[in-house]
């Protein structure tokens, strides 16, 4: 099993302004690299369903999120990422739009949609601000969807409405300072009390996205995996809330290469006592919870890669048409053509793989492991390569944060590490292929 993951959170700040660099840059660069932002209006309505939007509702969802992203997410991304701050207001807006509980049943405050819908939201958010999207993922997939799939009715009723609304910001704790891809090597333990009514949790969890939002205290609520027995697979999952005695912020992780507007922390559990009602699923039964949730985690991380790639290709395409060198637009040169065309083909390949897998992903079961790993393996490296080509095509403009490619380039790298390293995907996939596959589809 794999997984290491980042977590994150952010405070707020004003919207970004374009500064010095824009004076030096021709209009074409500016237009090409920014999302359309024709005023503050929202847009609506287009065509029917297609492969990437399995139903009309998916289509409407994509348009709503894209419109929101153009008007409200894109304008704030530069500043929050520069300042390494979590934009709590933007996050709250995701709740108002019904996106935080995308896969949760309406009775618990969710929107009752599926894996394809989750991919659409991640793709669209990530095209503008992968860091905000990562915080969204940690909250909505790793906590909210995880509890929706694995929790009891009581647990869902208690925690999901506030999480879907965005009044709590949540995350999940799996990786440890000394255990990432080797997740079963975790040493955080939960020891039952003699009467069996409670557990005492001791240990530390690392790379926790949304582990803090203010840099001073922990996030609001977490699903925490801990060892509850001597067997290697004796892992259980618990709900731990901010303010429980012994539950502390170890450190806010500063200076990340990318995903800088998403807060990442180490969380410390020093004899945290939780009641049995905090146990999610069966004692020693968290492997099932983990397996169920890992697939959607990987697929949505792959969707983030697809979003990054799309934005980078749009930038390359626009810039390549407008920018001239030696008297011709640079997209008339074979070297630039290769960057753009290779990127587009890889992007479309990845996107088709992604939405094909998402369409068949049953959130309540396991069994899509091979292709959940496969989409993430492919789409994340694809995104990193496409971002790199975009930077090459845009030259100096690509290298500066004012024009976004630089940020997407840094953000893309995380996708090869968090939520399952490439090496973890290789290992899992070959295990599954060797076990189950003789002839391929």
């Amino acid at each position, binding site marked *: 099993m794999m997984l290491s993951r980042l977590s994150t959170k952010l405070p707020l700040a004003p919207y970004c302004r374009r500064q010095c660099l824009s004076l030096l840059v021709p209009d074409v660069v500016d237009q090409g690299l920014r999302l*359309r932002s*024709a005023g*503050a*209006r*929202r*847009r*609506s*309505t*287009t*065509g*029917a369903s297609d492969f990437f939007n399995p139903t*009309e*509702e998916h*289509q*409407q*969802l994509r348009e*709503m999120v894209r*419109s*929101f992203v153009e008007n409200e997410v894109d304008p704030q991304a530069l500043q929050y990422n520069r300042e390494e701050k979590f934009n709590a207001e933007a996050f709250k807006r995701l709740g*108002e*739009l*019904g*996106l935080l509980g*995308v896969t949760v049943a*309406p009775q618990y405050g*969710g*929107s*009752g*949609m599926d894996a394809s*819908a989750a991919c659409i939201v991640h793709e669209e958010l990530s095209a503008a601000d992968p860091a905000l999207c990562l915080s969204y993922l940690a909250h909505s997939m790793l906590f909210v969807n995880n509890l929706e799939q694995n929790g009891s009715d009581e647990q869902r009723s208690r925690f999901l409405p506030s999480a879907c609304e965005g009044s709590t910001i949540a995350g999940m704790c799996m990786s440890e300072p000394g255990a990432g891809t080797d997740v079963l090597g975790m040493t955080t333990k939960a020891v039952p009390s003699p009467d069996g009514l409670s557990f005492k949790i001791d240990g530390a969890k690392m790379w926790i996205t949304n582990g803090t939002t203010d840099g001073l205290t922990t996030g609001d609520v977490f699903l925490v995996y801990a060892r509850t027995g001597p067997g290697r697979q004796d892992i259980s999952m618990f709900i731990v809330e901010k303010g429980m005695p012994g539950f502390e912020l170890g450190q806010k992780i500063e200076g990340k290469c990318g995903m800088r507007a998403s807060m990442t922390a180490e969380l410390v559990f020093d004899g945290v006592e939780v009641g049995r009602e905090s146990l999610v699923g069966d004692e020693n039964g968290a492997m099932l919870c983990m397996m169920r949730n890992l697939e959607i985690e990987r697929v949505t991380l792959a969707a983030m890669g697809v979003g990054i790639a799309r934005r980078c290709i749009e930038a390359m395409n626009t810039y390549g048409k407008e920018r001239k060198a030696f008297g011709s637009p640079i997209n008339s040169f074979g070297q630039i053509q290769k960057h753009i065309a290779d990127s587009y083909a890889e992007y479309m390949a990845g996107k088709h793989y992604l939405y094909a897998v998402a369409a068949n992903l049953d959130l309540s079961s396991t069994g899509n492991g091979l292709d959940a790993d496969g989409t993430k393996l492919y789409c994340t490296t694809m995104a990193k390569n496409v971002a790199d080509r975009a930077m090459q095509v845009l030259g100096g403009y690509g290298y500066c944060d004012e024009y976004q490619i630089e940020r997407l380039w840094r953000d893309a790298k995380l996708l090869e590490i968090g939520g399952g390293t490439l090496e973890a995907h290789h290992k899992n996939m070959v295990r599954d292929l060797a076990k189950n596959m003789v002839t391929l589809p």
Partner: protein
Amino acid sequence: MRVMVGVKRVVDYAVKVRIQPDKAGVELKNVKMSMNPFCENAMEEAVKLKETKAASEVIAVSIGPKAAKDTLRTALAMGADRGVHVMTDDAVRTDQGLEPLAVAGLLKKVVEEQKVDLVLLGKQSIDGDCSQTGPMLAGMLGWPQATFAAKVTVVEAGKQLEVERETDTGTQVLSVPLPAVVTADLRLNEPRYATLPNIMKAKKKTVDVLTAADMGVDLKPRTTVIEVVPPPVRQGGVIVESVDELIDKLKTEAGVLQ
């Protein structure tokens, strides 16, 4: 109070339109289509009336080919209770082949059938830009009208509105007895996003489909589009060094001074 809102499917406001090679109109193929922005304002206002309980029901109406259903779905997701789709022939362009007179005639039929107290429309659609449908509909119905609304206040539900409307010289406040036709300007409100739960709920709402050709309304256009051409490309200007140079250019190049 029953409110009816007209919503039109048009080329998205952010699309840079191109002319068809045969100059018959702007290119509609593979172009993003959206709800007309002013119709969004009208829709938003209707939903607000519903939220304040001034309106008991909001009906969204769209006149257009099959694809207009998407626009209706958006209206339903924004908060309309149900939809009416007046289906036109797919071959008819709603941006120029279906004129305000025909649209007003069709809307009149729907108004009469649905027994509405207030019709909210956009002040104009951003394709034809005629700004005639609202006034024509009011005229046909014999109802009062308040165009270019910037603020709508319900004085008494079902009886009386106060509408602040934008004019060239400022705003004008009208006292409007119902039933009436009100057309929305951009500053009336800020349209909401259709939230995901509401998108899902909209799926269960009903849309009645009527056929425009069967409604006893003369749909024939009164005008003929001869050709559509793009505006001339603006030439870059020059910066002159002095007043003397300017005067010289006005004399010798522009020929506007003797």
